[in-house]
């Protein structure tokens, strides 16, 4: 290992011991002094709530009321899929607020990692649309809920209208189109992709847990695998690839299409003839949330009309606050693929159904194997 020794000799040569100690002290002082300002700021940010969420939800626009009240933004921690998030929290990762979706909710609640949300503490609760509060497994008793619904939307195909030659109607077949092999993209989490595969395979979500459905969906996913250039949980990667033409179509959420359109990229968020995948996501509070009051501020901020209008206008998502829609006329909403009546959209697509942990694990295992080429 004289290599390393040599490296060391290169680096330090022959410092005297006294000089070394002097320098070490100086370095120590430097380390404690330089980031002093930064650390003071840190001390402040440690008092803010931490929001553990999907990439793209960590932006100031969603937290204006929070910032107005607490002077700063909450802290963010980002995950790529709800399974990843749950695994991390089960491993001892403590946050204030996290962000599951209706399909995962019962399993999240079953881990005992979350506390009921006292709806009375949320100033915007009265305006939340009751239809999307009443999700399976969301009732925490005495008027409280486990998850405060926040955003709802679709998983569908975003495609380049200028490059992708549409044959007939918009359909999930677009992501299985042999002509564009190697130029299609997909979200990597089974929580989206597998369900879209189910739609493509014609499996009713009520039967998704059956053995037959499993085989059918796996076959469809295997068929798609060689056509996919990249599976990613980072929507920015998909958006950039669509913008550059590296991809001609990709499985995305509403926001990717809206953001790309705002940048002038000719894309469209498809309305597949088989129906899109629909979901409702929301905020939950960790049972050991270190900043409980601010956790409620985060949720209240998410439910506010200001946030809702941004979500609708800039991201193209639905929002849980009925009043958020008032600023938009029906035509604008139609253009965004939304409606003032969320059920109209959610029922028109395929609404995800909660599954058991066993199914979830088996599905992820199979899907990862398929992604690896088997």
């Amino acid at each position: 290992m004289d290599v390393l020794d040599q490296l060391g000799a290169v680096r330090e040569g022959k410092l005297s011991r006294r000089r070394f100690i002097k320098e070490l002290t100086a370095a120590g002082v430097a380390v404690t002094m330089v980031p002093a300002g930064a650390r003071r700021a840190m001390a402040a940010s440690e008092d803010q709530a931490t929001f553990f969420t999907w990439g793209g939800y960590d932006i100031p626009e969603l937290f204006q009321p929070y910032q107005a009240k607490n002077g700063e933004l909450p802290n963010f921690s980002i995950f790529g899929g709800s399974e990843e998030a749950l695994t991390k929290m089960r491993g001892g990762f403590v946050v204030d607020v996290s962000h599951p979706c209706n399909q995962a909710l019962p399993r999240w609640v079953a881990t005992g990692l979350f506390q009921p949300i006292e709806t009375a503490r949320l100033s915007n609760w009265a305006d939340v649309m009751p239809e999307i509060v009443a999700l399976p497994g969301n009732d925490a008793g005495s008027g409280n809920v486990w998850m405060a619904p926040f955003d709802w939307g679709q998983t569908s195909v975003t495609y380049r209208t200028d490059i992708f030659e549409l044959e007939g109607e918009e359909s999930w077949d677009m992501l299985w189109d042999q002509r564009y092999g190697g130029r299609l993209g997909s979200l990597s989490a089974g929580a989206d992709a597998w369900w879209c595969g189910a739609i493509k395979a014609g499996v009713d979500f009520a039967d998704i847990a059956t053995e037959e459905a499993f085989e059918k969906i796996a076959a469809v996913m295997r068929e798609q695998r060689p056509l996919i250039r990249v599976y990613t949980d980072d929507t920015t990667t998909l958006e950039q690839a669509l913008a550059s033409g590296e991809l001609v179509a990709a499985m995305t959420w509403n926001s990717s299409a809206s953001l790309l359109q705002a940048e002038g990229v000719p894309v469209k968020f498809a309305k597949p003839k088989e129906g899109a995948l629909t979901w409702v996501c929301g905020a939950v509070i960790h049972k050991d949330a270190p900043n409980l009051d601010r956790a409620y501020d985060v949720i209240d901020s998410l439910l506010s009309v200001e946030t809702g209008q941004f979500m609708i206008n800039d991201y193209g998502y639905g929002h849980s606050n009925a009043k958020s829609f008032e600023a938009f006329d029906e035509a604008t909403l139609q253009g965004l693929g939304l409606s003032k009546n969320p059920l109209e959209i959610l029922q028109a697509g395929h609404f995800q159904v909660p599954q058991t942990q066993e199914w979830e694990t088996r599905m992820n295992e199979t899907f990862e194997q398929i992604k690896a080429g088997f």
Partner: protein
Amino acid sequence: MVDTPHPNRSAEAGAPMPRTSRLTALLHRSEALRGYLLMAPTLLIMTLGIAIPFLILVAMSTWTRDGFGFDTTPTINNYLRVWTEPVFGALMTRSFWISGVATVATVILCYPMAYYVAFHVHRRKMLWIILMTLPFWTSYLLRVFAWKVILGYEGVINSGLMSLGFIEQPLEFLLYSQEAVIITLAHAWAAFAILPIYVSLEKIDRSLLEAATDLGDGPVRRFLRVTLPLSMPGVIAASFLIFIPTTGDYITPALLGGPDGAMIGNFIQLQFGPVNNWPMGATLAIVLMFWITAVALAFLFLTRALRERLT
């Protein structure tokens, strides 16, 4: 010389207190004991950090996932699955293939560089060594990311070739492929090849080379008969230093590999993440270690046999 008993020492250290003096006397008498005592903290930490985790890892590899918990009845099912389901073997083979190619490429590309500095640079050798190792002070993650920028669809290579008119469409195979992983690994680990090879070249007695020249060997023959064999220890060390860590690499395939470039490290991580099958992850880690040991031993054995044949 070291072992000569020294009356001064024990008298000096333990004079005031008789009981400690007996202890120190014992310590002084048994140098092995003193040695063990000195190493104790290190060994304790290594035991805590290596031996115990490994025992638990082995134990866990015999368990079965059960919802969020584990069924701890021992079974070899996980190992059977690794053996029978093709995905595991294929990923393992692919990992060894990718890091093997990367290792060979790195060593071959770095050898002339080390040779140049060892034999053709006469002044400021240290400057050259620093120059060669400086890039490795930057974050590994960012170096890998930089390659993504270079190889990307709108990356340096594609935009360069397109503006020069060599290609019409960007080359898509550059990114999200095994080649991308290999190129990046070769670049990222270059220092680990240059330094050991340089050291072994530097150690070569120059008079041997002159002797070879005097005996009528041309430069090529001299290189093959003297320099190369004598620098083999460096080459072997470099190969190990690169091959072993890269087989378990996670970052590079995750960022640049795409679906076809995924390696076993990514799959192990998945077992602990979304797939949520920790026992399977533990099994894969153990199987990976087993194969690395096997490959390393085979490599050592081969090089030793080869050297014996040569000398």
